[in-house]
């Protein structure tokens, strides 16, 4: 019965996920505290061609957007498929987690997650090749994210030493 009552207040879409930023300056507790109060969302799985304008249009549907920071390839300084969206209020950011997360932008299902807050330097991909880490290792072909993953580009399937 108690479980049912908790279910009445259930709001799981705004829960903090398992992800923790490894580069965060502070301990786990501090990071979680910031995540629970944050007005900033990380947005992932964007196309490299998705513009700030498109992000602004979509994310404005849950409230007034204070700032958008497009994620950049560290070397090329071009968009590399993620961004940060900062709202003026927590409530607006929560609506984005409930209603924009998991829907499409530029034909791709995008993912939003709480972010502890933008700091200079966090707009860059952390993959070895300059983009995001996930684009280093993925095996699939994604034309909106530079084609094959970086590793797969350097070691195409036919030449892979590990294939038989």
């Amino acid at each position, binding site marked *: 019965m108690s479980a*049912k009552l908790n279910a009445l207040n259930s709001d799981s*879409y705004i829960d903090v996920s398992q992800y923790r930023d490894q580069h965060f300056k502070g301990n786990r507790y501090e990071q979680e505290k910031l995540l629970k109060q944050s007005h900033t969302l990380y947005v992932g799985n964007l196309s490299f061609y998705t*513009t700030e304008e*498109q992000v602004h249009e979509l994310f404005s549907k849950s409230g007034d957007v204070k700032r*958008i920071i497009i994620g950049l390839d560290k070397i090329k300084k071009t968009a590399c498929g993620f961004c940060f969206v900062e709202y003026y209020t927590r409530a607006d950011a929560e*609506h984005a987690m409930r*209603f924009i997360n998991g829907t499409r932008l530029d034909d791709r299902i995008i993912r939003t997650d709480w972010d502890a807050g933008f700091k200079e330097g966090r707009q860059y991909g952390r993959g070895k090749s300059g983009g995001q880490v996930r684009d280093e290792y993925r095996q699939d072909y994604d034309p909106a994210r530079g084609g094959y993953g970086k590793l797969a580009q350097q070691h195409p399937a036919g030449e892979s030493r590990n294939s038989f």
Partner: protein
Amino acid sequence: MSLQSTSSLESNLEGLAGVLEADLPNYKNKILRILCAVARLLPEKLTVYTTLVGLLNARNYNFGGEFVEAMIRQLKETLKNNLYNEAVYLVRFLSDLVNCHVIAAPSMVAMFENFVSVTQEEDVPQVRSDWFVYVVLSCLPWVGKELYEKKDVEMDRLLSQIEGYLKRRVKTHVPMLQVWTAEKPHPQEEYLDCLWAQIQKLKKDRWQERHILRPYIAFDSVLCEALQHNLPPFTPPGHMPDAQYPMPRVVFRMFDYTDAPEGPVMPGSHSVERFVIEENLHCIIKTHWRERKTCAAQLLSYPGKNKIPLNYHIVEVIFGELFQLPSPPHIDVMYTTLLIELCKLQPGSLPQVLAQATEMLYMRLDTMNTTCIDRLINWFSHHLSNFQFRWSWDDWSDCLTVDLEKPKPKFVKEVLEKSMRLSYHQRIVDIVPPTFSALIPAEPSFIFKYADESASSLPGYAVSITVGNAIKNRASNEEILTILKEVPNPNQEDDDDEGESFNPLKIDVFLQTLLHLAAKSFSHSFSALAKFHEILKTLTDSDEGKLHILKVVYEVWRNHPQMIAVLVDKMIRTQIVDCAAVANWLFSQDMAHEFTRLFIWEILHSTIRKMNKHVQKIQKELEEAKDKLEKQQHKRRDSGDDEDMDKNSEDEEGQLEEQIERLQEKVESAQSEQKNLFLVIFQRFIMLLTEHLVRCETGSVDISTPWYKNCIERLQQIFLMHHVTIQQYMGTLENLLFTAELDHHILAVYQQFCALQL
């Protein structure tokens, strides 16, 4: 607790009743609290939990009595706290407890009689007595039969009183709340009128109601052995001036029995089944709106779904909420996402119903309220962006044959514009047939007056090049201002010695050049505004300066309304322009040709909201400072005779008092600015509308042009979207603006608005 089949539900209930009964000695209060909460928060599962309470009462009479008392206490609390919707659920729960032999029918009738007697009160807002009548009527689908069997004379008297009240009710507010102005194919009925018709029909059918799931019927043999309790006499709490009764509403209908092609028939608009289904679906959304997957699943597993065209009901209820005036119960984007989830769960049937609904809404655009059209535009374009913009545009080619200002082509145009914002220009060109080219939005490119040598004859050309280079070379503000001194002032014969007075050309040259350099993205433009904030503030020191800067922004970005909106937002937030300047600009002659476009109204409403939030923010700061002072004063009083502490305390209090005085001034100034903003807006509307009406009258022309419909409904929209704030200024509005001399068409809007709160 699942509701897969009635037989497992019954055994679940029986089992649960047994467990709870055993727990009563130790956990009675907890169980009471949980059951009360469930009654308040899970109205769609009403009959399941009343059955449970019935079973518990049969096993433990005292518990039943305590539960009823707890419910009455909770009812009083919710009414005190203006939670009128939840109070309805509580009363409905109590009334269904009559069916479960927990509450004696005569005592329920007595409560209803007390409720209906509110209609005899004088000098109370109509919405107050409305609510009490609504509560009684809305319980009757559940308990009408039982009450009539026991107390038919009293019930007849009750219904007759209600009928009398409904006849004398004022219904001025109805046109303002209707989604369509047309009566066909479905009249937008006032909610109490519709419910009354439904109850009348139910009575005619001798209270036979077959839709509601009633688990207690299976337990009748157990329940009828139970002793019943009498509800204590319940006097409705008196009217308090700060009471916020629910606003009246209109019942949204878009489907009837002709629309579902196969399968079960849709219950008629005045059938009680229709009421119960819609009520339950609204309740499910209210409970689960935060979790769209659960919400969609709960909607689709509605008990009794095989007997009704459930998809049609769901789509109708969702659109009903989305189009509700003044505003939807939940944020607009929730409905978009919910519909997408529903399409995912029922890919073989729901998308078709949704497409059918969209087609119907398109066909009825000519009489649809402008605010509702706005929401339809936003919903449809966002929805399409999740489905690769696939749509049978050719089906809508009829819109190409009429004046492009008419609702249908206008709608398509705005949808394509919004769709472009979520994608890009070429995509829109690709998705529509070539015949639609007139409706395709312009490419969102910058229009630079001083672009190239062909502009060399323009007075500002040379300076724009110099300024452009200076900006690129990171010149200081002083250097740039010096360069700008060279710009001649078209408003003056000789140049002002100081160069301080309003010089529109100077603003034009600087801003056009700056924004051109920063045109690449929103972020580039924001950086530019921030970097040259000082210069911009200097240039826009006067009202004329502020107006002109807005003019220039429009000139350069008129193909990119989205950019205009974000720049205006930024300029308000950084105080380069103020809200009144934006309002004056939007209503100016220069913008008249854009007056019916959606982006204009989005900017205006966003501006009003910023003003409102600003006032609220300062008011909050003032409240917090006052609280702090109070705490400080208490501390001093309680701290005893320590002289040092006293002195520090006094200093702190003195500082706080100063701060409070400053904040008080700030609040008054902000409120004055807010009031002025609304006055400007209303004045402008009155001027524009009066001009149009007079012109039509003298020319003996029909006033109902597309422009007029848009304008008068935009005026309504101001009232509806900001009614909470506008309430404060009613006196001024009535005395200064909405006087009896006004044309009755305009005055009607004001009167309808006033009627919403009566």
